């Protein structure tokens, strides 16, 4: 009997948390290696379409991004629900695209200025009219290399 009473005396043994920092550091390193820094916050909805014949975009410093899509809910009151263009951190008109490309191109080192790619990150529900306008703006400033950024997947999922 004495044995039992003795056990009741002590509290539950503390769970050792000594390995917790190791686990968290492991997670931290995982996220540090697989992710990249966000350079601008998205103000448009951006569900990209799927495609299977994709090529990887190598070398981040040679890529300019243009986002297109419906403004997110916070901005819909001000900007409506029609798809808009986002350049860096602000909404823009089609006519601003050319200036944006020229400006960004001038910021890049000389040797990269001719090998820049424009990545179009367009929501899959946007209409082609706006994209065509962007494309003709890009042609005007001679930014001919474009990349339609997509998720890797079955392309037929886009039309369902």
């Amino acid at each position, binding site marked *: 009997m004495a044995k039992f009473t003795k056990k009741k005396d002590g509290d539950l043994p503390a769970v050792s948390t000594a390995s917790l920092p190791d686990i968290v550091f492991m997670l931290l390193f995982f996220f*540090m290696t697989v992710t990249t820094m966000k350079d601008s916050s998205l103000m448009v909805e951006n569900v990209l379409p799927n*495609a299977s014949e994709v090529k990887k975009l190598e070398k981040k410093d040679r890529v300019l991004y243009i986002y297109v899509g419906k403004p997110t809910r916070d901005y819909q009151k001000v900007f409506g629900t029609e798809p808009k263009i986002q350049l860096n951190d602000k909404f823009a008109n089609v006519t601003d695209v050319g200036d944006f490309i020229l400006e960004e191109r001038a910021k890049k080192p000389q040797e990269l200025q001719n090998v820049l790619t424009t990545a179009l990150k367009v929501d899959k529900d946007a209409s*082609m*009219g706006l994209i*065509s306008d962007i494309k003709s703006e890009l042609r005007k400033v001679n930014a001919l290399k474009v990349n*339609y950024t*997509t998720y890797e997947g079955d392309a037929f999922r886009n039309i369902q």
Partner: protein
Amino acid sequence: MSRRGGPPEVNAGSMADIAFLLLIFFLVTTTIETDAGLDRMLPPMEPPEDNVVIKQKNIFTVNINKSGQLLVEEELTNLKDLRSKAMAFLDNGGDGSCNYCKGRRDESSSDNPTKAIISLKNDRETKYGTYITVQNELVGAYNELRNREAQRLFGRDFTDMEAEFLNPETPSSIRDDLKGKVQRIQELFPQKLSEAETSTSN
């Protein structure tokens, strides 16, 4: 004071908190980037000086209307059949000058893969998702043909070779070797995809 057990242990209890703080910082500021897509070249603004006459049979027309239906060579087509139709057109080799083509050698279709042009036209109200699907199928048609030739000549897929060639981590000696091979395949089936101005729907 007792100094028998060596130096006192440092309390590491707050280490987890510090690591969590860092973890949360990285979770918030970073994204898992989607950095793959379809590469395309836009045509330059100035049209070429000399007016090149292209035979109608060397042009493969694809029209997308605003509800996402396809008109391929004046024929309503299902999106799933587009790839095979495009491949049949590119691989046709109508005038017999193409010795690697395996098509039907139909007189009324394209003469040679190097002359064959795919013309893509879309409506302003076409959904972007549909457009990408069509682009994907057309690029897929080229890739399948290129893979076939690459398998025949070099015993490996073209897409695989190209990916290795474009990867900056590939050593330059391998890259130089691949460059010639990639270019050779590209010359066999050059990607000629013309995009006309969009039409406005009436």
